[in-house]
């Protein structure tokens, strides 16, 4: 197993709070896997992102016990260059533009400029990433004139262009309309194809079901489960823990209860169609 990030006995409290936001977290993340993080609001998902990216406690202050390791080294030993190892995208598209560039092209190049990448190389890298995130037509527009979905794609592009191996994405579509959401998710699909390590926090459970390899479930600051996606999303007991499960999974369970034997509880639409069709065929024999 190629462990790329690790949390060892991590307990973290925000400043001036008595109750820790995350308690006794032990976690090993493998390179190249897609991790979905689910749980109620306030359960610690965003705190997890902050810890993994090193923003807690350095920016948020507060108290940290235990260690967060990136490639074996404690994360606070990395300086500004951590941006090239871990990309970070969060909810609000408007606060993810740098504010000092007039065109989308320059906005996406900004990170590369900060890293001192030679000018000749920047253009090509930026064009490739703009194509991948479907924003090439916006290249000469001002970042301030974009829609929420477009801005979020620019934010993703600006981070992807630094070629990090790990991407932490915290509820990227919660402020977007369905069209924007779809455009963001097709980018995430491309990232998965490139075998990046992805940590995605999302409420839209069907999307986690579609892309994740493994799922982490959080409740009130504790990670209550960390298993393969199939196991977690088909386990209805999680409904009591405040988690939404894919509708097809709930449907699958109910059908099973009523006597229709399914080979597996489906978690995606595609799977549901396959499994139910199979079961019906069996029945009609």
């Amino acid at each position, binding site marked *: 197993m190629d462990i790329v990030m690790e949390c060892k006995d991590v307990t973290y409290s*925000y*400043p*001036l*709070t008595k109750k820790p936001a995350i308690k006794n977290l032990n976690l090993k993340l493998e390179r190249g896997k897609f991790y979905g993080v689910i749980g109620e609001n306030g359960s610690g998902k965003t705190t997890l992102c902050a810890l993994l990216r090193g923003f807690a406690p350095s*920016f*948020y*202050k507060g108290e940290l016990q235990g260690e967060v390791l990136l490639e074996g080294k404690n994360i606070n030993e990395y300086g500004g260059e951590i941006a090239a190892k871990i990309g970070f995208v969060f909810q609000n598209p408007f606060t993810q533009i740098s*504010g000092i560039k007039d065109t989308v092209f320059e906005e996406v190049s900004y990170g590369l400029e900060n890293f001192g990448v030679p000018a000749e190389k920047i253009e090509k890298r930026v064009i490739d990433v703009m194509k991948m995130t479907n924003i090439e037509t916006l290249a000469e527009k001002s970042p301030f004139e974009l829609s929420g979905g477009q801005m979020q794609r620019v934010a993703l592009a600006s981070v992807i262009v630094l070629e990090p191996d790990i991407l932490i994405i915290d509820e990227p579509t919660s402020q977007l309309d369905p069209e924007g959401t779809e455009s963001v998710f097709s980018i995430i699909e491309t990232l998965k194809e490139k075998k990046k390590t992805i940590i995605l926090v999302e409420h839209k459970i069907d999307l986690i079901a579609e892309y994740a390899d493994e799922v982490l479930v959080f409740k009130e600051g504790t990670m209550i489960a960390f298993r393969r996606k199939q196991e977690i999303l088909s386990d209805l007991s999680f409904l009591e823990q405040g988690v939404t499960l894919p509708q097809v999974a709930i449907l699958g369970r109910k059908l099973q209860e009523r006597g229709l034997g399914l080979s597996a509880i489906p978690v995606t639409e595609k799977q549901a169609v396959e499994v139910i069709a199979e079961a019906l065929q069996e029945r009609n024999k």
Partner: protein
Amino acid sequence: MEGKKYSIKEDFSMLALLIIPVGVAVNFVGGQLASLLKLPMYLDAIGTIFASLLCGPWVGAVTGGLTNVVTGIANPVNFAFIPVNVIVGLVTGFLARRQMFQVWWKWIISILIMAAVSIVVSAPIVVLMFGGVTGGGTSIITAAAMAAGANIWAAFFGTEGVFTVLDRVISFLICWAVIKVIPARTLIKFGCGSNYIKEKK
């Protein structure tokens, strides 16, 4: 509260660097709004005061000075008043560090100090560079007083005095209102932010 050690380097944290542009823009918009609502005050130091209260005197000074540099691009006359806004930032910041805004009577003294300093620094600039009149709101009154024979300096201090105090009071109240609403976990990220957090017992 025990004395806190401050360093200039720490004052200019990343967050402070991002507050400066906000302060500059608030100064600008405040001034714009004041003239839109036809108020006889400039109200163009709200951002400076805000930056000083949260991040200390040096950040406040940069906010104030930068405001005049930026507005000077459109109208170079504003460059002349850079020192005034820089001083506003410094004075407000130092007063804030000494907790001079926590108790009502200290607050009144502080406002008076802020207004007085502002007038004292701008007076020589207005009088020597502009002959006492810049064409702004209170200038007409100053001009009238001068016509009546009053000494330039007396005319200036009289009119500017009252309105500057009022200006600072309103500016301060706005900053206070905003700070009250900011959640504690955000305030703590600012250099002087912990001054404004009320301990929950």
